[in-house]
């Protein structure tokens, strides 16, 4: 029982980070109709930014978090405006744009290595205590922070997308860009904002997971593919599907690691991805996006 609780908490913490990445994939797919492979490495950049603000510049945690989100937002926005939109305007085939995001992901990865470090950097703990007791089990407080904060992000994103004018206009633009433009919505600006938000939430994932995993240049590329798998499981393009898919994947793979073998966790995660692609490509939330392509 103690082990189960322990695994559930660890799994949800990891799953929360996957969800933050997955949501970015889905938001971008809805807004641009494109897949991006840069999400994971944006998380890496976010983790290093967080490290810089928190460990090196000794800023308060929450300030480091917000600054990281802001910088990542700008990176995502500029990525859309400077690379993606430029290619779209050349009317290139979508596959070239996907390829460009792969190139960008390596640029982020190697850029992080050049700017910061090629070693595993420790991310100082956020709390003064090493462990807290939950239902009689000792857990790292950062994993609770990770669960709580990723949940809060999801709830905030939900309210932003459904209750605010800009959020509703972003959904409208994703559904029908011509109609949105005719309603006076600046669709191009909106798309840039979507990429910015996707980058922002991925980057704070890096800050949440840093204290547990350490910060290193390939941190995000591993998490990024898992986040992608989570997005597919939930229903690619569906924001809520991404939340659920990411959490579920984190939970399942941690349980497999705990009860069967930690060597099987990745194998298991990708087998699940393949099974979903074959059996339920529309994911848990029955999102039709993939069939449309």
């Amino acid at each position, binding site marked *: 029982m103690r082990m189960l609780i322990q695994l559930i908490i660890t799994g949800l913490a990891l799953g929360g980070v996957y969800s933050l990445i997955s949501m970015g994939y889905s938001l971008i797919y809805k807004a641009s109709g494109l897949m991006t492979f840069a999400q994971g490495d944006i998380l890496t950049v976010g983790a290093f930014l967080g490290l810089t603000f928190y460990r090196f510049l000794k800023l308060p945690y929450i300030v480091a978090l917000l600054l990281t989100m802001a910088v990542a937002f700008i990176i995502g926005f500029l990525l859309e405006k400077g690379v993606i939109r430029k290619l779209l305007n050349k009317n290139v085939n979508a596959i070239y744009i996907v390829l460009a995001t792969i190139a960008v992901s390596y640029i982020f990865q190697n850029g992080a290595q050049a700017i910061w470090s090629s070693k595993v950097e420790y991310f100082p703990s956020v709390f003064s205590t090493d462990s807290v007791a939950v239902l009689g089990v000792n857990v790292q407080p950062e994993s609770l922070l990770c669960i709580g904060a990723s949940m809060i992000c999801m709830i905030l994103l939900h309210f932003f997308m459904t209750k605010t*004018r800009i959020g509703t206009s972003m959904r409208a633009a994703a559904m029908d860009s*011509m*109609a949105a*433009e*005719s*309603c006076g919505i600046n669709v191009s600006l909106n798309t840039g904002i979507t990429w910015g938000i996707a980058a922002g939430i991925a980057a704070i994932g890096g800050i949440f997971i840093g204290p547990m995993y350490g910060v290193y240049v390939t941190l995000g590329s591993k998490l990024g593919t898992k986040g992608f798998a989570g997005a597919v499981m939930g229903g690619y393009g569906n924001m809520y599907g991404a939340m659920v898919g990411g959490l579920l994947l984190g939970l399942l793979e941690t349980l497999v690691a705990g009860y069967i073998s930690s060597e099987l966790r990745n194998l298991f995660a990708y087998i699940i991805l393949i099974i979903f692609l074959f059996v339920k490509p529309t994911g848990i939330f029955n999102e039709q996006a993939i069939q449309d392509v």
Partner: protein
Amino acid sequence: MAPLLELQDFHYYYGNIHTVKGINMKVDEGEMVTIIGANGAGKTTTLQAISGLKEAKGIRGKILFNGKEIQGLSGHRIAAMGLCQVLEGRHVFSKLTVEENLMTGAYLRKDTKNIKDDLKDIYRRFPRLEERRTQLAGTLSGGEQQMLAIGRALINKPKMMLLDEPSLGLAPVIIKEVFKAIREINKEGVTVLFVEQNSKIALNTANRGYVMQVGEVAMEGYCKDLLEDEEVKKAYLGG
């Protein structure tokens, strides 16, 4: 007085294909004007180019709205000038509710306090939209979607409304209702330019009309004269 909308030697190219071949059009403030013509005559292209929904690089010539050149501006900027289009095929946001669709139409408005009143006004005009205000727009019938598309453009308080094939795919009784609404909107001071394949109802609704044929204006004049014209009768009114 200068016309509210004017096209001067307007051309449109899809790559190398010359689809609209130098047309001139004028719409005065308060008028209701129609463009009729067969499929592929360039009607929709013209309307969408006016609204900034076509690629700017395909446009040659001038489009003037309210005295300003607008050719090549992006769609949201033209909408902000008070020139709003109801698109062919309605293009409602299918997974937003009726009310969210209308609120998206009010996206540009700064006077948020008055939007509620205008929403009521649209519901008074189209009571069926009020009944369905929390329903997803994709679940509405074609006629209701057309009313929603008109309401969505209207709530932006346009000076001029462009409508592309408002009768498309609708039952005759619904078509009547839609055109009654368009006439009312025009009476309330909104200048209207609409494209319509149903030439009979178009010429019986508008004041003036343009007949487009393969990218050119073949004929223009008052609708009452076009209705009597032998060629128009033969080609567009079924003899």
